[in-house]
Each structure stands twice: as C-alpha cells, then as structure tokens.
C-alpha cells in the first residue's frame, strides 16, 4: 500500500507508481497486503470476542435480567441499522469491483454512499443513546430507569453536537479550498459534507420509525413495541437464604435483577460504543480512499487499498450482524 515511488517505468496510475521497492511484483504486494489485512481482522475478531464472552457469561448466569433489558431496546431501530450496514457492505463490495474494472466515477459514488450509510447508522445510534440517557438507562451502578423522561429531547441535541461541528468544519474547509482553487480538495470536501449530512437523516429516521410504528400498531402492539412510558416497578424480594454467614437472596430478586440489567447495559454500551468507534475509524479510512480515487490512483492494475478497506468495512458489518440479535432480540 506504500506510495513511495520506485525507479518508475511509467507516469500513469499503474501499479509501478505504487509498487513498493521491497516487493518483487505487484501481485506479491497485493497478496501481502491482503494477508496483512486478514491478520488485522483476526485481531479485531478476538478483540470483540472478549466482549461477546462477557455477554455470554452474564447472560447464561442471569437470563431473566437480560431478558428484562429487552424493553429498553427498540428492535425496529436495530433492524433498520442492520439493513443500512448491509447496504453499505454491498456498496463497498461493489466499489472494489468498480476499482478492479477501472470505473472511477462509479467507484467515487459508491464510496460516498458507503460513507453516507455509515453516518446514517451513527444518526440512528445517537437517537437510541440519547433516549436511554434521558430515561436513566445507563451502565451498571448508574442504571436507574425512569418511567418518564422529563427532559424531552435535550440529550439528543448534545449527541448531535459532534456532527454539527464536523459539518461546520467541513463547510469552512470547503470555502477555503474553493477560494484557493484547490479543485480536487474542494470536491472531496463537498462529498464528505454530503455524506456526513446523512447523519441527520439517521436522526430523523430514528425519531420517525418508532413514531410510525406506534401509530400503526397503536394499543394492540404496545406490549411488543418499544414503549418508553412502560416501566416496571420492582416487586418485593422473595425469601433469602444464608450462605457462609451472609444473607444471600434467591436468584433474580427484583433488586438483584436490576443490578444485572445494569450489567447488561454496561456490556451493551461498551459493545455498541466500541463498534461505533470502529465505524468512525472506517469512515476515516474510506474518506482517504475516496481522496485517492479523486486523484485517479486506482485501476485494474492497482486496487489493493480499496480491497483492504473493503475487508475492514465488512468486518465492522460482521460484528454488527452478531451484535444485533444478541442485544436486541433476546427475551
């Protein structure tokens, strides 16, 4: 993936320009890069599996507490995010194909759409996180679910601040680039602006989908659909027993259950939060590939970086494919 120039044989955007000196051939460079990315993906899989392990242990030991958490999670939003991410995987895989065939224009648009899907995903996530924040559904130790939120949307504004700041920054950057006539840079920033604006489409979808669902299902589906006003007060504890001098409650007494539901949300926030960090990193790398696309670096003879970034993006999708059912569809 190195851009260092060798004793160049051609000035075109062929593989000679990007063939690093320590590789014998372009094919070898491609294969080495691919293996390198797969090895990195192996570390990523093991990275996430630590969290999956925590989930597995706590779920097996406290299944009712985990099932209880289900009422705070909106399946529709999770499913929508899954579809969005699957679509972004499609556009990313298609982008690799476009790079292989030298279809630079198509490659550019597919990468931009992939970025937009990523922003959309984060927008929906922002709505989910903000809602949970407002009703006190936090991590263990701070898990105090309220029946009603008295803040009405303030948290969502805070969650939108990074996106707003990014858009403003990009807007200023575009103005500067356009002024100094850095055409390609300005165009690139414009594409980033457009795809980042999709964050707010995600926020809109995140608010609209539950509202539409509520309107359609009405009171019939209220037990199944996510209802933020449907809280449960803890029932009085059952009898306890003594164990080595301590009074131990029977498993899943109300207060213990609440503590372990808090643990579920600790795991939920770390898993989805870490996944969101990976989405952000992926957006950064895809933006870099988009820049290189605008510079016409890629073609049938050289498309490795597009391929490798694609692999990373598919892994982010893979993680979500497992996160979604485990977190949203239990109980």
């Amino acid at each position, binding site marked *: 993936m190195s851009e260092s120039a060798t004793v160049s044989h051609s000035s075109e955007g062929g593989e000679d320009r990007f063939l690093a000196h320590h590789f014998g051939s372009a094919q070898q460079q491609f294969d080495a890069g691919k293996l390198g990315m797969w090895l990195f993906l192996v570390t990523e899989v*093991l990275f996430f*599996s630590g969290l999956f392990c925590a989930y597995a*242990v706590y779920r*097996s030991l406290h299944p009712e507490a985990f099932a209880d958490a289900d009422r705070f999670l909106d399946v529709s939003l999770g499913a929508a995010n899954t579809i969005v991410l699957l679509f972004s*995987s499609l556009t990313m895989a298609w982008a690799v194909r476009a790079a292989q065939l030298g279809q630079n224009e198509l490659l550019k648009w597919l990468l931009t759409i992939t970025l937009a899907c990523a922003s959309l995903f984060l927008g929906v996530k922002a709505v989910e996180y903000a809602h949970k924040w407002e009703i006190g559904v936090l991590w263990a130790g701070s898990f105090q679910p309220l029946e009603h939120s008295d803040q009405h949307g303030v948290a969502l504004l805070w969650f939108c601040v990074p996106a707003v700041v990014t858009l403003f920054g990009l807007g200023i950057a575009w103005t500067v680039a356009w002024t100094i006539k850095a055409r390609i840079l300005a165009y690139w920033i414009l594409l980033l602006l457009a795809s980042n604006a999709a964050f707010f489409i995600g926020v809109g979808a995140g608010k609209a989908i539950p509202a539409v669902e509520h309107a359609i299902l009405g009171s019939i589906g209220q037990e199944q659909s996510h209802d933020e006003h449907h809280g449960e007060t803890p029932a009085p504890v059952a009898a306890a027993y003594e164990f080595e001098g301590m009074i131990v409650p029977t498993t899943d007494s109300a207060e*213990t259950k609440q503590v372990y539901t808090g643990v579920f949300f600790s795991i939920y926030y770390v898993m989805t939060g870490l996944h969101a960090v990976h989405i952000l990193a992926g957006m950064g790398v895809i933006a870099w590939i988009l820049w290189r696309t605008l510079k016409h670096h890629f073609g049938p003879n050289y498309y490795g970086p597009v391929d490798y970034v694609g692999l990373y993006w598919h892994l982010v999708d893979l993680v979500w494919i*497992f996160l979604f*059912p485990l977190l949203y569809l239990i109980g």
Partner: protein
Amino acid sequence: MTASHSPAQSHSHASHHVTPVRQLLAVFGALVGLTILTVILGQLNLGSWEIAVTMTIATIKAALVALFFMHLRYDSGFNAMVFGFSLLFVALFIGLTMIDAEQYQPDVVPPKPMNEAAVEPKERASPE
C-alpha cells in the same frame, strides 16, 4: 476492461476474480431476507431454541458476507484458513470461560446482600 501491461510486470491479473453485479445483489437480497427472518423469529417465543436459531441465522449471514463480499470463496485458501483459525480461538475463548463460569457460580457474592424482609423501593435518583 483491461489496461495494457507494462513489460516489467510479470503477473497477469486474470486470477483476480471480479464479482458480478448480479451476485452482489443476490447476496444482499439474501442478507436482507435473513435479517427479516431473524426479526420475525425474535418476536416469537422459542424458549431454549431461541439462541441456537438466532445464532444459526447470524452465522449464515456472516458466512455470506465472508465468502462473497469479502471474497474468501475466490481467494487462495490461505486467507480463509487464517480467518478460520480466529473463529477456532473465539470458540475456545468463550467455551472454556463458560465452563469456568458455571463451575464457580455458587461462590459468587451477589451484588447487594439483602435482608429477608421485602425490599424497600429505592429512591429514584438521577443518573450519577
């Protein structure tokens, strides 16, 4: 669509498989279909089958992404083997930890020692 090859290049790129658009769209369609299926099944109460069914569908989706989107089906087998090893180690990781967890559960101190009387409703404080 192939570019001309410079004389210095020693390998052709004929071995690089280009995924047909139809295949990409077909895989995407299957993934969406499986997602809908898993959501529907998630609404039903399958009891002890719940996690097995959910994980099976998720694994099929993951296999589709890995084999087609990530190109493992058309790559040399080495990359697939590397990835397969990671899954093996994940299985060991979770499997052995689960065995341990079950073993020591009776010794785990519960989060809050409680009295035999009914629990008093906790005051609803704002999140810390």
